[in-house]
């Protein structure tokens, strides 16, 4: 009898540990490195978008939008092996972020008002951040982090 109780206790504690670990395991992505790269690319292109607007280089804005869609595709590819419900959540928010970026791109053909474009770009950044919210904090890029290269101009 005592032995059965012991076995049951061991099994119960094992089950308890598994229950606790399940959300942690679920939060783990299959290709975290690739996901991190794709998220960083989205930030990089978004920052480049912002820079072209600030420099009033409006002709480059549609090109930045194209790169943004490529970075979005990189993220889709990075999560292709994740569960369907997670992919669906990401896709919904990613579509909204890409649509917001397209609005900036389309506007750049009709206006030369950098402030107006910057305000629209800020909305696109908010949409992009809602995509990032779906990923573990350690994979989310820090928009204020220095770029991987030398960063500031060394003239």
């Amino acid at each position: 009898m005592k032995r059965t109780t012991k076995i049951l206790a061991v099994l119960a504690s094992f089950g308890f540990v598994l229950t606790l670990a399940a959300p942690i395991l679920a939060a783990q992505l299959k290709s975290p490195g690739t996901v991190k790269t794709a998220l960083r690319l989205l930030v990089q292109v978004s920052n480049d978008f912002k820079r072209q607007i600030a420099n009033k280089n409006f002709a480059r804005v549609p090109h930045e939008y194209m790169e943004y869609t490529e970075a979005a595709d990189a993220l889709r590819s990075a999560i292709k092996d994740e569960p369907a419900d997670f992919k669906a959540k990401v896709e919904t928010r990613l579509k909204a972020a890409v649509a917001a970026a397209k609005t900036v791109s389309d506007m750049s053909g009709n206006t030369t008002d950098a402030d107006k474009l910057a305000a629209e770009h800020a909305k696109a950044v908010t949409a992009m951040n809602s995509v990032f919210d779906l990923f573990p904090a350690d994979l989310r890029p820090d928009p204020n982090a220095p770029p991987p290269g030398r960063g500031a101009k060394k003239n």
Partner: protein
Amino acid sequence: MKVRITGPGAGCTPHDTLAEVMNFNGLFLAPLSRRRLLFGSLIIPLALVGCGRKRTSSGQQIVDLFIESDGDFLAFRPDTLTCPSGALVRLTFHHAGQFLSALHNWVLVSPHQMEAVDKDVEKTDGIISKDDSRVIAAVPMCGKGETVMTQFTAPPPGDYPFFCSTPGHAVDMNGILHVTE
């Protein structure tokens, strides 16, 4: 064959074959002792490095440099290069991107000219004019996976900035060529 090594590969000529270099001092003709093994493991890499230094028929030193984009990120890898003044530099640039269609290049300019050149080429979508006297060397724009080359004579000693001239890239994608005596 006599080989005098006083520095990394000094004394080697481009005509020395690998076998000749490895064979010196009977290193591979006698049974390997621990001392010989240690000596060989230290000397052979030095000798091989030295033999990478070539010269033109006129005696000008040839230096091969390689640089690439940091994948799709706006950065060079490595972001500092070194060569001696007067050398014929053969530089290979590789666009290591996989996802983005952004074009990259490598442009070397005179000190303190990067910002001005970068600003000027915004109008030409980053295309560098061959007549721009501030530009020392440049490779053409290339897309992901492409590799391009250029060659130039290294300028007088000093630090020379290089950057990618695609509009908006130079602020992050830049580096320094250290030209030594």
